[in-house]
């Protein structure tokens, strides 16, 4: 237990941890603040103003239409050809209708907590996952690099216990940060919803769904932190994790996309990692193969491939377990020099 508390303290004392936490807080606060300015509460006055604007637009449009019809009839009376210029029947069939001037189009943007907050959970998860990756990789990478790990092993020679305790301290810290900031993030958007948007229809079922999205975000953040920790431990350097991340991004997001495009692989994006991240948050990702359609023959329903969140869990889970098993195995087997 003392080692666990020590590692929590060590992680908290690290300059990078504090710097990244400040950057994360500033980033999230900036997003929330900027977003709050873009949302406007739809008060009865604002709705009435939008309705009045729509009515005015409708009236202007009708007057324009009447003037056009009159001009057309005058031209016909002069014996001129009007069909090309005014359309058939002087455009009488195209009289503007009131429903074509929906007041909604004149309303300012209003944040709808129920409909839009899940997207902001994904944004939050992305930011905290980046924090977890950098802090996780650096926590163990810098320890190896500066000799801290060796010093610690002279005190606690049980290698697996030391690495496991460090991982536990990292995940506990990341979990704590995610839960606390997640609560603040939810409160901030609830506040934006109540003061400058709407929180209507946020039923218990909606909160349950938001809770599940939150759990998915927490799981992703923990997996990212653990993988970064494992990679840096495997390479005994922070740069190993950062290098691996760049390599995976380059291979998955660029290399594979180009390859499946060139080879015309059906549903090629199922081999791209970000598809699984998207599916994890959106519960599923739908991929379409438009090559199966011949649009010249009319409307077509393209072939569909669905990546489920369960498949995402499998991909990320297997990746994380493989990295962690590798890290612990090398910790046990490799000499420390």
């Amino acid at each position: 237990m003392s080692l666990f508390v020590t590692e929590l303290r060590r992680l908290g004392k690290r300059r990078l941890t504090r710097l990244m936490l400040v950057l994360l807080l500033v980033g999230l606060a900036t997003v929330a603040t900027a977003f709050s300015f873009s949302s406007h509460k739809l008060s009865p006055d604002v709705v009435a103003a939008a309705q009045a604007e729509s009515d005015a637009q409708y009236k202007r449009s009708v007057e324009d239409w009447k003037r056009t019809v009159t001009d057309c009839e005058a031209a016909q009376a002069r014996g001129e050809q009007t069909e090309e210029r005014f359309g058939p029947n002087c455009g009488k069939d195209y009289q503007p209708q009131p429903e074509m001037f929906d007041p909604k189009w004149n309303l300012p943007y209003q944040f709808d907590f129920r409909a839009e907050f899940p997207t902001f959970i994904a944004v939050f998860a992305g930011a905290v996952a980046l924090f977890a990756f950098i802090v996780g990789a650096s926590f163990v990478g810098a320890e190896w690099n500066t000799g801290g790990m060796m010093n610690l092993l002279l005190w606690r020679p049980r290698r697996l216990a030391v690495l496991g305790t460090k991982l536990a301290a990292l995940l506990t810290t990341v979990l704590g940060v995610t839960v606390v900031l997640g609560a603040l993030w939810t409160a901030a958007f609830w506040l934006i919803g109540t003061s400058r948007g709407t929180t209507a229809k946020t039923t218990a079922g909606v909160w349950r769904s938001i809770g599940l999205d939150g759990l998915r975000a927490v799981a992703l953040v923990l997996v990212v932190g653990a993988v970064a920790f494992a990679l840096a431990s495997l390479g005994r350097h922070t740069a190993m994790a950062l290098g691996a991340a760049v390599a995976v991004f380059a291979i998955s997001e660029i290399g594979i996309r180009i390859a499946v495009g060139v080879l015309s692989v059906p549903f090629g994006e199922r081999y791209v990692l970000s598809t699984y991240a998207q599916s994890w948050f959106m519960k599923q990702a739908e991929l379409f193969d438009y090559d199966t359609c011949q649009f010249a023959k009319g409307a077509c329903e393209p072939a569909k491939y669905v990546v489920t969140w369960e498949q995402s869990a499998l991909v990320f889970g297997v990746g994380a377990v493989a990295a962690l098993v590798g890290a612990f195995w090398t910790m046990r087997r490799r000499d420390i020099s």
Partner: protein
Amino acid sequence: MSAVLEIEGLRKTYRSRKRGVRHALDGFDMRVEAGQVHGFLGPNGSGKTTTLRTLLGLIRPNGGRMAILGQELPHALPTVAGRVGAIVESPQFFPHFSARDTLGLLAQAGELPRQRVDEVLELVGLRDRAGERVKTYSLGMKQRLAVASALLKNPKLLILDEPANGLDPGGIREMRGLMRGLAESGMTVVLSSHILGEIQLICDSVTIISLGRRVAFGPVEEVLAAHSQGTVRVRLEAVSDLPQAAETLTRSGIRVATSEADHLMLSGVDKPAEVSRLLAEQGLYVSELTPVAVDLESVFLELTATAPVPGQHRQVDQSAKVDQTGTAGGWGA
């Protein structure tokens, strides 16, 4: 006297496709008695640090037996780790932590009282700089911090790898006093160093390693005595005659240990008069013929065959592997 540290037939082999097989430790033996300050000497790449790392569980050996405080390693390492303080090679600490933070975290990991941190900071002379970041420390201050971290546990066995590295002369003297004081308080100290004068001054016994094998061991005075017999310094009237003198003596079975610019050092000379006679027969006239009392440095250079030779550049692994003979009292003797 009971042994605090015992090593028998320790082997560590590195295999590489490019460089082939290298035996870092090749059946190395070592024994350190309780309450001693024991010098552990060897040229660069001889296996000193590998031995210490293996003892401390950082390197997995390929064979042999190790025991600390009567407990077999590596099995009992977690049990004895609390009674062994160590620094291995250059001191390495997280640069952005202060000395107090660094030691505080170690003390917490080792479940030691917080006041122990202040005690060791005082002991190594870092009390007034303890709040500063380690990255602002000089090498000598980092070395003091490393010694403080090793002393934190108040260990029974203290293993220090080059503790005087980077210390100023005053610091070296303080370190010498500290080692002596610790030994007098009952602590056993194993000291790896290249400052052989220091080792000779403060150590009760030594082990010398070369190419992964022990080449000498025992109390310092016995090691010196065993290698000081028959060492003679010879100067000639004409310096230009030294090469011919060296050749003549070598031909007659006398070992020329070193050939300096203005003199020769001979070893294994029973009768100095014989040297004088042999040279005179060749028309070479001696201006000085002095029996030399050897110091640890010359013994070390002789045993490890690492004395510099004019015009040659010795490579790191060029040192002697001697049959395991030594003075009495060592493990396996």
